[in-house]
């Protein structure tokens, strides 16, 4: 079981809270640095923006465009092209967490453009699918739990 926290996210002047974790991506022999990831239970795919591809996948933007094509539409944004690559994603709750979970052979799509709110989204398709995501909403101490 993984356990993490919600972070304050400002959209305009209004703040809301969203569940964030820490993730690193492995593809072939390349393992990325650990970065922030939004656990987006409402998204269909695992997504990153193309300006993170070099760091997370170890590939140039041109190489990335040779991946499995898909057209996606993020909330309120025009449809963009995306390119899928099979990777392993290692997830943990916070920089202090000892527990990790590895999502092996999942499809990570690289959006040919920016993404709203966060540049790395872990979505349902081969990501959070089949897991129980529990949102503990306790005033200022919001936590999430992820269980198989």
């Amino acid at each position, binding site marked *: 079981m993984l356990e993490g926290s919600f972070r304050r996210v400002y959209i305009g002047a209004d703040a809301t809270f969203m569940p964030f974790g820490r993730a690193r991506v492995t593809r072939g022999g390349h393992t990325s640095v650990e970065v*922030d990831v939004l656990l987006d239970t409402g998204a269909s795919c695992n997504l990153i923006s193309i*300006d993170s*591809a070099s760091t997370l996948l170890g590939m140039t933007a041109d190489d990335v465009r040779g991946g499995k094509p898909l057209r996606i539409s993020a909330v309120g944004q025009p449809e963009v092209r995306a390119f899928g690559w099979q990777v392993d994603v290692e997830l943990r709750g916070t920089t202090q967490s000892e527990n990790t979970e590895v999502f092996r052979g999942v499809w990570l799509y690289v959006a040919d453009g920016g993404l709203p709110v966060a540049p790395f989204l872990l979505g349902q398709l081969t990501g959070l699918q089949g897991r129980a995501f529990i949102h503990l909403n306790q005033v200022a101490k919001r936590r999430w739990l992820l269980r198989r």
Partner: protein
Amino acid sequence: MNRLKGLIKSDWTEDPCFGGGVEKHREESGDWHFPHSGIGEANVGNSVVDALLRELSSRRRDEDAVYRRLDELEDRVVELDRKFREFFGERELPSGEFESWLEAVAGEAELRGMHVAFKSGIGLVAAARSLDELVRKLDGSQNDVSIGYVPGPTV
């Protein structure tokens, strides 16, 4: 159980529920309604008492089993309640220096939508609009820092 048996035996001839009742029933109907009707009154009374004792003993066993089951269920409820509080009770996650810093800067408009590099004891060491750009800025020293993102509506 022996004490109970003794009490019942001493009273059965007077008690209409036992011997008295059996005798009265025999006088009124001329029929014992028992398989051992030819053996005699005392034996008939004893067989009734034995039957009742067997029934009482059986009920007692059933009740003991129910009470044991209740005790087990109570233990399980206490254990589940403890686990529920452990998982869902209000408590703070151990928050690292990096997460605390990110939370503190979340309200700063100039950092919203930025990728940031944080070093313990120093704070912000680099910031950029994209992750690849941030890593280029760090120029190979990204292993000593925590890389994060200050959420914002960037597209």
